[in-house]
């Protein structure tokens, strides 16, 4: 059984990059281009993990999506990883070090963009799905 990942990003190029590389590594990958589509695909596809871009149609679309997923009974325990360039674009730092921070941000981890395909694959295989 292949592991299922939902990729949410409005950048077609990142989707074009991440989707094939994850598929090639043996994952089943579904994509969504915005938060609304993300929530839809979540219900249909039932992923085991989600990679979500922060700034899509709004700068905080990713957070909104996280919050919605985490509030669903079936989404509560699905790891959601936020991908954002906010750290170097705005200087805002995110932290998901403590449970409190995780709970507040409603995300389980975050990745600093830009993320190369290689780094993403490594993160997904060695961290996200390490114990699965």
């Amino acid at each position, binding site marked *: 059984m292949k592991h299922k990942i939902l990729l949410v990003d409005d950048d077609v190029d990142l989707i074009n990059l991440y989707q*094939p590389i994850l598929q090639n590594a043996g994952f089943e990958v579904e994509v969504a281009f915005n938060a609304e589509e993300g929530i839809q695909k979540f219900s249909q596809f039932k992923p085991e993990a989600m990679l979500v871009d922060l700034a899509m149609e709004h700068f905080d679309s990713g957070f909104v999506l996280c919050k919605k997923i985490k509030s669903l009974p079936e989404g509560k325990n699905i790891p959601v990883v936020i991908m954002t360039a906010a750290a170097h674009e705005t200087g805002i730092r995110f932290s998901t070090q403590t449970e409190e921070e995780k709970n507040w941000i409603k995300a389980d981890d975050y990745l600093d963009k830009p993320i190369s395909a290689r780094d993403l694959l490594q993160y997904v295989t060695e961290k996200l799905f390490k114990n699965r």
Partner: protein
Amino acid sequence: MRIDKAKILVVDDEMGMREGIKRLLEIENHQVDTAETGAQGISLGTAFEYDLYLLDLKIGDCDGTEVLRQIKARYPEAICVIVTAYASIDTAVETTRLGAYHYIAKPFSPEELYHLVGRALERRWYILEARRLREEQERRLMEVAHEKSRIRTIINTIDDGIVVVNQEKQIVLWNPRFVKLLEIDRKINVGDLVFDILPENLHEQFNQMFAGQTELKAIKQEVVIHAPAKLVIMVNTTPIINTSGEMLGVVSVLRDISELKQLDLLKSQFINMAAHELKAPLSAIKGYVELLIDRTLGETLESYKQQLDRSRERIDALVSLINDLLNISRMEAGTIRRDIEPIDLSNLLTHTVEFFHTDMDKRSLTLDSSIEPNLVMDADREEIQRVFTNLISNAIKYNKENGKITVNAQRDNGYIRVQIADTGIGLKPEEKEHLFEEFFRAKNPLTRNITGTGLGLTILKKIVDSYAGRIEVESEFESGSTFTVILPTNQIN
């Protein structure tokens, strides 16, 4: 010093004496007038100020002192010498009280006369010189007063704020602009301490100046004034130094550079956005290339087809973007070369529409065009072509499958009105508002796969504006947009 060629009046009823004196003085190059009666003497002597008057005390018709009195009344500084017989010496002495310069007793030798006339003319010279100096001084004072008011007027008219502060840090001069710029609401008096008047963020400059930390050089500083409106002021403070190198005070010139700062900010924002727009496709291409280098998706090129196709798309987009950027920069610098010629817009539109036929067919779009013939305007063909190519291409790109495009062109009151309407995805009101802004692109699921630089409409608007034309947009979200371009025609209806 004395007067060499003097004008002298001799008043004497004795012809021998009169003519004798005249002859003697003429030898010395003086110009001599004579009068034989007191009345004549008064008349001549008060009509013109002679350098010297030689007056006989005993004239037949009147008293010589009367002649003297009248002349002195008219010309208080006139030099009068009394010519008198020994018998009336006392009277002669008396005349000096009336203002006579001196007297000479008859008979006298030519030397005696020359000596006295010489001295009298020397005196006259001093009087004239003093008078000249006095007049010059008065004229100068007038000039200074005039100059002062002129400088005052100039200072008051200058559009920069000016304030002059003396060594005691007291304000000694300022202009209305200074008061206005800093919104100083209290009345300023000469002698007010500068620190009581200036906002705090301007104190530092003056402190430095007076502390001599600047080695008496000018300080330039941008200062932001917040209340009541935000202003950026360039303050240029310079010491006023006298010829011995002492500092007498400082003068500050305040200029409102808010508008320049705003432009500067817009430029920075533009560069920032442009950099962003350039970086995004490059990062994508880099990602695709890395994929290929790492052979991540397999050994054959076919495995990378999607990524390579997409790379080429992104490279094409980058080239378009760079061209657009260059175009905008050229337009703004005004270095764009234009070949203005009469253009048959009807023809141009018809051809442009035809050119896009295949693209329209691909998306199953129907075309409804109604173009009035002979719509002519003076313009650069390439620019006008660009406007309509861009609009029709947008009408195709942002349309829906099986949609419709309507192209209308007709004369309208000395203008040419071209309307290009689509039945596409349309614009939300907030998108419409930003449509002509640089790098604005409507971002929603419907536009995801539509490429563009975000500069097309910006450039298009610049072109239309430059022909004194106008571009308008009507749009309803998800049902279509209509772009109307109004351009002046060079043909009179």
